[in-house]
């Protein structure tokens, strides 16, 4: 009986443990995922509120009204169509076709779910219809428009699909988020009839692509960290392809680079050299650095829903490991994540959490919430980041990224050309990730161009768009960095 009593006590503790697990999991779920589940456009409770509350405005950091509710209740966007289309994936649409647009995702603010009790009473007694809160974004809509025109200008001969994102790498604020093809939120019904190319899909955060040579940033970081003899690294890049297992690795356009040290290999983007580095590192060390940079992590950012980036946990054979070295195995990342990586390099290895909201103001004008920066993770050590900065500068001054150079801006970056298949057909993606190494222009960007064809590289397709971005930033520098917060 004594023993039975002891067992009863143990069993009770087991039950208590199970209940504690329930409580912990329930609290964790609601606190972390609560907003996402609530903001789903299938939530019937939101629909009910939408009928009685006038949605608040969405403003960009300059105060431009990106979305507002007209007197007759319809949701109106900017007057110019080009401007509307440029920000549509960030702002969203009234129906929630862009599932993670601010219109949908920030329902709890826009439709007044966060109103305080006194505000409710006041609204009731005054008899007017309730208004939701106004949301100010960190983005600048003019930059979005500029990026779209840059795409139109440069990649005229390619399929008009791609994405671009610009971040402030010191604060994590998203300055621009553009995805192509886009659509006009004021005329959705036409797009619904013909949605070729998936115009509702936000390619910046929802799609992951093989990063191609832009991943060499991570490989180099891993090498700098884990290989002791990296200082004396030298690779002889000849004409003949490198054979790993049953596959051959060659460089874009064939040809040889000659004898390379690490920096030159990076600047010229030599696949064979980085395949060699990957093989020397081994799967485990490369995986470790990739995960420190955010791969395989479950992104749970407050303002943004970002598809998780993938790095293979095991390498099936040497070929897959080697291919990971230059970003061509099953490695995949979203343009936003690659931009965050570039930002981390610029910011001494500290990766900031990307934010889209600057502040939330009540309809009466009171600032309800002002958001602050948060560190997401330390991706690289300062020494590694410093070395990478130098090498990324070399890419733009004397490597594959020359097209991204801009007068008056210290542009650093990395190009990439990734091969993949889509619907069984081969497709190439052109990448450019980079940043401005100037204290008064703390911005990083990532540009992705889909389907550039076999003859073009990332350096030719994506880098010029990045150049346009940095040029615009330089021209409007005073406004974007010194813009005061909205009252």
């Amino acid at each position, binding site marked *: 009986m004594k023993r039975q009593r002891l067992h009863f*006590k143990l069993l009770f503790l*087991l*039950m208590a443990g199970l*209940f504690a697990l329930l*409580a912990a999991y329930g609290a964790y779920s609601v606190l972390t995922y609560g907003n996402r589940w609530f903001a789903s456009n299938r939530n019937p409770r939101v629909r009910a509120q939408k009928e009685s509350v006038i949605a608040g405005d969405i403003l960009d950091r300059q105060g431009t009204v990106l979305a507002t509710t007209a007197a007759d209740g319809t949701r109106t966007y900017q007057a110019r169509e080009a401007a509307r289309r440029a920000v549509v994936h960030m702002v969203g649409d009234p129906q929630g076709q862009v599932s993670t647009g601010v219109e949908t995702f920030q329902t709890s603010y826009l439709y007044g779910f966060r109103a305080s009790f006194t505000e409710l009473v006041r609204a009731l007694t005054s008899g007017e219809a309730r208004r939701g809160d106004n949301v100010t974004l960190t983005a600048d809509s003019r930059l979005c428009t500029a990026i779209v025109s840059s795409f139109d200008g440069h990649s005229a001969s390619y399929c008009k699909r791609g994405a671009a994102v610009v971040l402030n790498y010191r604060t994590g604020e998203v300055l621009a988020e553009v995805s192509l093809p886009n659509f006009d939120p004021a005329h959705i019904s036409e797009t619904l009839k013909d949605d070729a190319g998936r115009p509702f899909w936000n390619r910046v955060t929802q799609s992951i692509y093989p990063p191609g040579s832009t991943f060499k940033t991570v490989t180099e970081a891993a090498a700098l960290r884990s290989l002791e003899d990296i200082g004396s690294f030298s690779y002889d890049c000849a004409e003949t392809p490198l054979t790993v297992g049953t596959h051959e690795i060659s460089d874009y356009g064939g040809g040889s680079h000659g004898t390379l040290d690490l920096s030159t290999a990076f600047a010229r983007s030599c696949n064979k050299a980085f395949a060699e580095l990957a093989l020397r590192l081994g799967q485990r060390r490369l995986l470790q650095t990739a995960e420190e940079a955010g791969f395989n992590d479950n992104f749970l950012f407050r303002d943004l829903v970002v598809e998780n980036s993938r790095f293979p946990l095991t390498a099936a054979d040497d070929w897959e490991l080697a291919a990971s070295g230059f970003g061509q195995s099953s490695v995949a990342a979203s343009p936003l994540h690659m931009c965050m990586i570039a930002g981390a390099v610029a910011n001494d290895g500290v990766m900031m959490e990307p934010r889209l909201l600057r502040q939330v103001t009540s309809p009466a004008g009171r600032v309800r919430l002002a958001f602050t920066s948060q560190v997401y993770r330390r991706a690289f050590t300062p020494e590694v980041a410093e070395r990478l900065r130098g090498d990324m500068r070399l890419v733009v001054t004397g490597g594959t990224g020359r097209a991204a150079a801009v007068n008056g801006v210290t542009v650093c970056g990395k190009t990439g050309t990734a091969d993949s298949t889509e619907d069984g057909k081969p497709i190439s993606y052109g990448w450019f990730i980079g940043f401005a190494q100037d204290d008064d222009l703390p911005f990083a960007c990532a540009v992705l161009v889909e389907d550039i064809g076999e003859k073009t590289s990332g350096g030719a397709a994506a880098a010029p768009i990045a150049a346009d971005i940095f040029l615009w930033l330089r021209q409007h520098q005073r406004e974007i960095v010194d813009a005061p917060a909205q009252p």
Partner: protein
Amino acid sequence: MTKHAPSRRLRRAATRLSSVVMLFYFSAFVLLGLKDYAWQAFALALAVPAMIWLGTNFLPRLFPADTLLLSLTNFLCALGVLVLYDTNPVYAYHQAAYYAVSLLAMICCVWAVRAVRHWGAAAWVLIPVSLALLAVPLIWGKETYGATNWIYIGSVSVQPSELVKVSLILIVSYFMSRRRFLPWLLFAVACLGALMLQRDLGTALLYYGVTLLLFFASSGNVPLTGLGVLGGAGAAVLGYRMFAHVKKRVAIWRNPWADYENAGFQIVQSLMALASGGLIGMGLGLGSPRTIPVYHTDFIFAVICEQFGLIFGLCVLAMYLAILWRGATIAMAARHAFHGLVAMGATLMIGLQTFVIIGGVIKLIPLTGVTMPFVSYGGSSLLSSLVLIGLIQGVASLNEDDLHEDMLLATGGEEEGV
């Protein structure tokens, strides 16, 4: 023989709890009444607190009751009535009727635990009766929600597996306390088999879990218990491979949004309800609780969290834990191994069932189709839950009697120290 009267402090603690509970229900029903000025709500605002008061002060005088346990149980049952009234008043009236019947059943159960002398004979009678009850749905049952475990007698629907829960505990406890291995093992296996055939996998899980844990409690045989756990896991994997709907349930559990329209609909709505509730809820009478599928039985916890919030949901969880604590205490105080096992078995059954259903609702584990004890709508569910409480109460009253006898012995036989 006078029963030991609780001290004044204890009575004060009891009154304090019941007064807060009465206040809670009074204010809740009045608020609901303000919505449509329905007289029924105001009537309930008076009736439910009155029931609670009666339960705490009056009922214990009629039969040997454990007041604390009764209070906790009443709170949860009344919560069920409140939430059902909030969503669909007709269900609330039915539930109140079921509650009255189940309360009577509970009292009968307490009396039975005290009165039955020859549990051996009782056990041997219960075995064929229980197996027959479990077999009935297989022959005459109608399929609901994918499981064939309901039978309809006229207009009343009964779930035999809920009733057999009680006899399972009695039978298993009896033979385990006598250290007779075979009878309870065969019976348990037969029950599980019947449940598997009915596709009632959630209840099968409960039966298996409680039997295994009681085995551990009575024998202390860790290797065999571990084997049992592995066996259960193996059976789960086998079930996954064999049954298509188990595969679907597990797939939904991992990513319900993939099949939002059909299979994942229930859990997605539940999660959205949880999220909409936030910490303090959307408000009683607000929100859209009826959009949650099966809101009156399986997902009633989601309704509670939507209306009252996560904090209140955790409070409900804590109340269940209090019941478990009380049940375990009573089991530990039992003088006979049989009584202890009965009380613990009932406690474990309630605890496991609560864990399984709430786990399913918050997506910790896949959905299984068991109901939430005391709160869920349903005659069989409420009946079996209160009968289990009745078992615990019966053991508690026996403990009180034993303690009382010991006190008499001690005061009487002091000088006689033989």
